[in-house]
């Protein structure tokens, strides 16, 4: 799939510094107390591509992901160095609030977490409503648009006011994707979005990722090598907090430059 020419972005020069990247990460380090979870990582993520972050548990890939929308700041021990630019804007600039960054960079979590006190439609629109959007027409339009993009509309259109927790696990996760899409982010971060789902629901999420790439820049952390190979254009391999290798997914999986990458993707460790 990544071989098809229209899905491989042209601007992908080695070692992965795109011409006008959606995200430009430079010398990023993240510390928890004295421990560095991410060490001096630099990479560019091209717009409208899917980038998979792979690596063994504890390699800092989730921390890296959370640093991109400043979610790591929820941990009072966390501290970062370096720079991340979103379409040229420094997201760690003193003038920028984390709330603003998170509106532009959405996130989907490993465990689906629709709000249990809210209905399906309330879950989709919560990000808009709590940021002051009151126009009912816009809310209704965004609800349908987001649910369609999350490939959930046909399954729930007749019961939009049912409790969100009445959905199945896979549907709940797609609802969380719809909820993230409703605020129109520019980048969507996904932290192992399918690891708690059955193979069928996983396949749906992967199809969805390929679909969403037309409009969004997606960064996905995954433990599943096949998933990375199937769904991503670029792959970054993290090990012990360092970025070992970053490049087109086909290259990482067929002809990696580093021995450690090869060992990991072929299942020799990790």
């Amino acid at each position: 799939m990544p071989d098809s020419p229209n899905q491989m972005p042209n601007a992908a020069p080695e070692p992965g510094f795109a011409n006008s990247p959606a995200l430009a990460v430079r010398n990023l380090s993240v510390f928890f107390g004295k421990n560095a979870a991410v060490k001096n990582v630099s990479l560019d993520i091209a717009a409208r591509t899917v980038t998979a972050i792979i690596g063994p548990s504890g390699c800092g890939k989730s921390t890296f992901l959370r640093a991109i929308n400043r979610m790591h700041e929820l941990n009072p021990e966390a501290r970062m160095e370096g720079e991340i630019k979103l379409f040229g804007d420094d997201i760690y600039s003193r003038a920028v609030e984390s709330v603003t960054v998170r509106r532009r960079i959405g996130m989907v979590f490993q465990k689906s977490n629709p709000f249990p006190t809210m209905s399906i439609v309330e879950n989709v629109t919560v990000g808009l409503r709590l940021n002051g959007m009151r126009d009912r027409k816009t809310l209704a339009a965004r609800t349908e648009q987001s649910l369609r993009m999350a490939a959930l509309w046909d399954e729930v259109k007749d019961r939009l006011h049912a409790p969100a927790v009445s959905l199945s696990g896979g549907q709940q996760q797609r609802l969380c994707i719809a909820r993230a899409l409703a605020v129109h982010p520019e980048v969507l971060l996904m932290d192992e979005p399918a690891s708690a789902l059955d193979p069928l629901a996983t396949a749906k999420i992967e199809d969805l990722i390929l679909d969403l790439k037309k409009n969004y820049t997606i960064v996905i952390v995954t433990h599943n090598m096949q998933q990375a190979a199937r769904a991503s254009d670029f792959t970054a391999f993290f090990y012990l907090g360092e970025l070992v290798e970053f490049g087109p997914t086909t290259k990482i999986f067929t002809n990696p430059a580093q021995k450690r990458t090869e060992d990991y993707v072929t299942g020799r460790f990790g």
Partner: protein
Amino acid sequence: MTAPNHRWRKFKNGFMQTLTFVCAILVVVPLVLVFYHLVREGFTSINWAFFTQLQKPVGEPGGGMANAIAGTFILLAQAAAYGVPIGVLGGVFLSEYGGTKLNWWIRFAADILNGVPSITWGIVVWALMVVPMHGFSALAGGVVLGMMMIPLVMRTTEEVLQLVPAGYREAALALGIAKWKTIVQIVIRTALKGIVTGVLLALARVAGETAPLLFTALGNQNWTHKLTEPIAAMPLQIFAYAISPYDDWHRQAWAGALVLLLFVLCINISVRFLTRDRFQPKI
């Protein structure tokens, strides 16, 4: 050689099992005794007049403690008005803000306050309010009950907020929702039943307090709606009747105690009702 050993072991097992069962029954016995006595002594005195009339002078039959029932509700409403906002917001701070060290001290203080004898609360509020204001008052009674509610409400609020999975907070924050909106609209909303439960249990706890009211609300034989005047309350009325030498008043005391117990029971039942589906899987 194994047989007697086996028998001895079986005997020990059976003995301990019986012992724990008997102790478990002993826990329930007082409730049964209390209920039995209150119903036997007080039930006949509960009638319409009990809820609608003031007390009659000694020797005259009938009368009731309508003013004391109303007084208890006025005191509890005040206590909730003072205690619930402070307690809930304090609990929100402990759960959602605050540093580890600071929170440890606040929790420690709240736990000590929860163990302070109620008569101590009474004396303190007497010194802080009754003396400077030159008189006992419903206001002082409401304040003392409210103060007793604060640490209770704060701790239970904190506990139920902590039960809200971190994933909900993260999901909301990741949507770019401000922290205070996340707390009000997501966290508190998810934990609302638990918070209401905590408030009701705290109310039930202070509803029967007598000692602190002796120093503050004092009691009143007549109707009053002024917060600056002494006010009647059921526990005070029960106390006054019970230590009187008159059989009529004794019966009224039993009836009052029964009504108070039923009131607390009602609160507990509503709590059960509220928390009914709390243990159903949320996800």
